[in-house]
């Protein structure tokens, strides 16, 4: 029997393209104007970058298996966004230190998650949910004195604007492509990446094959925290303002993007390309529904249904293959 099989990242990407082309037919769509279409497409991808980066950490923890998940990602985004905002305070020369602070703070929170999961044997769901509460509390404490700060001009230029006026591609997209290549290198071309997949499938086999499961798991959660921190840095660079509920709306989509991208939620199989495609699909659907002036409640329902449909399709494909 010839088996028909499309890899999940490609499937998600095809879905995105089809949806985008259909959106052109809408009353206020791009119609036949290729320039408008390109501009719209670019804008969608640009908006996907933030979700995509935040979902990178989510991809890693989910790949590492054993119910791996990071529910603290949203609150880390808010926290590091605020820290960046306060640290930079409009000065270009503080951007680098704000960037490093974001990564380090995120990594520390992630490490705490990892420690709780590996040593206190708390399930990732509970541990990261609890951590999310703690971090949110921390944000409120910081915020009480009313945050005063400002994004630096260089951040806006680096994140929101194109590299040169001649090539109308925002820097955020270029950053994302480079980031995607780095993620691919990490997962597919380092021993560490191979070990993440290994512990995601079978930790006994991994241990008996010499993989330091504990160390890999701690590193995965720390890295996921750092990536969420990076996400916060990017988000504030784009929006230019901070508020308490800045990061939380990214949490559910970050998990959904991983799933839509075809990564097994039970771990051990998947890719960051898939997550990138998933982030684009979700962002596209959200913005289409928004332009169609569909209320938020319906938007959520459509997003949820998309997730269910995609996952069940992947599940069926796997069923055929084995």
């Amino acid at each position, binding site marked *: 029997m010839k088996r028909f099989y499309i890899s999940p990242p490609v499937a998600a990407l095809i879905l995105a393209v089809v949806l985008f082309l259909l959106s052109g037919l809408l009353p206020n769509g791009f119609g036949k104007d290729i320039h408008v279409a390109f501009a719209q497409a670019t804008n969608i991808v640009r908006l996907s970058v933030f979700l995509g980066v935040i979902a990178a950490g989510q991809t890693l923890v989910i790949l590492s298996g054993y119910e791996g998940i990071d529910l603290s990602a949203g609150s880390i985004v808010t926290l590091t966004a605020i820290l960046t905002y306060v640290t930079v305070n409009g000065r270009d020369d503080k951007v680098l230190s704000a960037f490093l602070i974001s990564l380090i703070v995120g990594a520390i929170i992630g490490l705490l998650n990892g420690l709780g999961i590996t040593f206190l044997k708390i399930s990732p769901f509970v541990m990261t949910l609890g951590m999310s509460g703690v971090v949110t509390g921390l944000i409120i404490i910081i915020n009480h004195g009313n945050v005063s700060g400002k994004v630096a001009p260089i951040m806006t230029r680096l994140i929101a604007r194109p590299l040169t006026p001649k090539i109308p591609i925002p820097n955020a997209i270029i950053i994302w492509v480079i980031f995607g290549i780095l993620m691919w290198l990490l997962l597919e071309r380092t*021993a560490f990446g191979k070990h993440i*997949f290994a512990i995601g499938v079978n930790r006994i*086999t*991994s241990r008996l094959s*010499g993989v330091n499961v504990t160390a890999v798991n701690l590193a995965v959660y720390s890295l996921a925290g750092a990536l969420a921190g990076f996400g916060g840095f990017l988000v504030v660079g784009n929006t230019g303002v901070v508020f308490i509920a800045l990061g939380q709306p990214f949490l559910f989509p970050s998990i959904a993007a991983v799933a839509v991208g075809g990564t097994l939620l039970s771990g051990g199989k998947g890719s960051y390309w898939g997550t990138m495609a998933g982030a684009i699909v979700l962002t596209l659907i959200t913005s289409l529904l928004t332009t169609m002036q569909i209320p938020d409640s319906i938007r959520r329902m459509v997003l949820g249904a998309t997730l269910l449909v995609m996952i069940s399709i992947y599940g069926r494909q796997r069923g055929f293959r084995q």
Partner: protein
Amino acid sequence: MSAALSAQHVVKRYGGVVALSDANLDIHSGEILALIGANGSGKSTISKVINGVVDLDGGQLLLDGKLVRITSPQVAKHLGISTVFQELSLIPQMSIADNIWLTREPLKSFKVINRKLLNQKTEELLSLFDGTLRTKFKPDLPVSALSPDEKQIIEILKAISIDPWLIILDEATASLDNRQVERLFELVRQWKAKGKAVIFISHRMEEIFRIADRFSVLRNGKTVGEGDIKDITEKELIQLMIERENVVQFTKVSAESESQSRTKSVYLEVENLQTETLHGVSFRVHEGELVGVGGLRGQGQRDLLLSIFGDIPFHGNIKIKGQSIHFHHPKDAIKHGIALVPGERAREGLLYIRTVLENLLLPSWNKYGFPLKIRKAKEDAARVGDRLNLVMASLMDPVSSLSGGNAQKVVIGKWLLRNPQCYLLDDPTKGVDVNTKAEFYALLTNLSKEGKTILFYSSDDDELVGLCDRVLVLHDGIIRAELKGRTLTKENLIAASLGVSNGGEA
């Protein structure tokens, strides 16, 4: 209460493997029958057939002369047949009382459990083992808080709580201490006096002679002898368990090398090794030696291999090439050139949904630099695949697409890539087809010729006798015998497995 159960010409197949080909068994109330056989002879299968855990493929069961079909453990219980299994069937989070009376709890009105009666009935059962249990053994204690021997006793109490006429004790004494065994035997004699029947399976020959009235010997799924225990000696029983006609061809590398190995240096030295199941094991292995580890299943062989490999904590001294080592993680052992082929390949040896390539390279990725040299990895993996005659469509196919024998080759292949000095093998030919077995034997022989040190546990006695220079026979966590040269015969191996001391050089 008087009854009789008879199993006649029972056949049981698991896929292509014949577990029972012609098993016969007769037991009457007021009788204790010892069921005897080597590894894989079908003892557990016949007890599962009688208890309804597996359905038979041929033959029949007669209860009081009438044909019965025991299709599930519930049916067996209904017929008054109860089994104490070797693998414990208790639910750790639940209390002693809840475990014993699970699904049969005494009820009050509105189907509410009558706690008082439940505890009272449990106390009654517990009092059977009075004096051999820890003080203050309460019915509401969770099972997870109990030691292995206590769990085994609860298992026994659970089996007798249905007041059966036939009780099957499958290795029920293995984890009990002497006093508890004594107590159990007193109870067994009481049951016998009351007209109950007991099928007794044990790896301790001495216990069999103490308690049983009759015996039934299984060999390769066939009943080969029955009779009164007083008419037979240990030696004769062992003769019965050994197959005469079966000639297996093995090429032994070093039949002559016994003198050679003396001149070679000692590679591995183990002194007074103790774990949960090992109670002081000492031995030496020379470089290039192929040493077998034998005995019935679960006598500490697994702990022996895993503690050397650094996977489980242990007490005692282990030296490699004269240097004291104490590994705390398998990765340390691997760095020292040791490899382990674990016993359950799906659970411990493979990443099922990942590719053959990734499975083969799992212990070795760190050697391939950054970014990983995937082409070189593929070349190396392909070379190992060729060496092992690995049948696969492509290196990039998942291991789940391979047959059992080929999957097992992957488990060994991942170590060949690293070229270790010492191999620890935990029953590597279990569930592997005949051709692959032959290839393994050739591989082991070659590795041994190359000077690799091999410690090889197998549940297949023919393999051990045929392949190994020496065999250490484990029994109850100690080395019962060391067999080599002329003493390395299947007869001695089985005798030592059963704890009979005159078998080898004890």
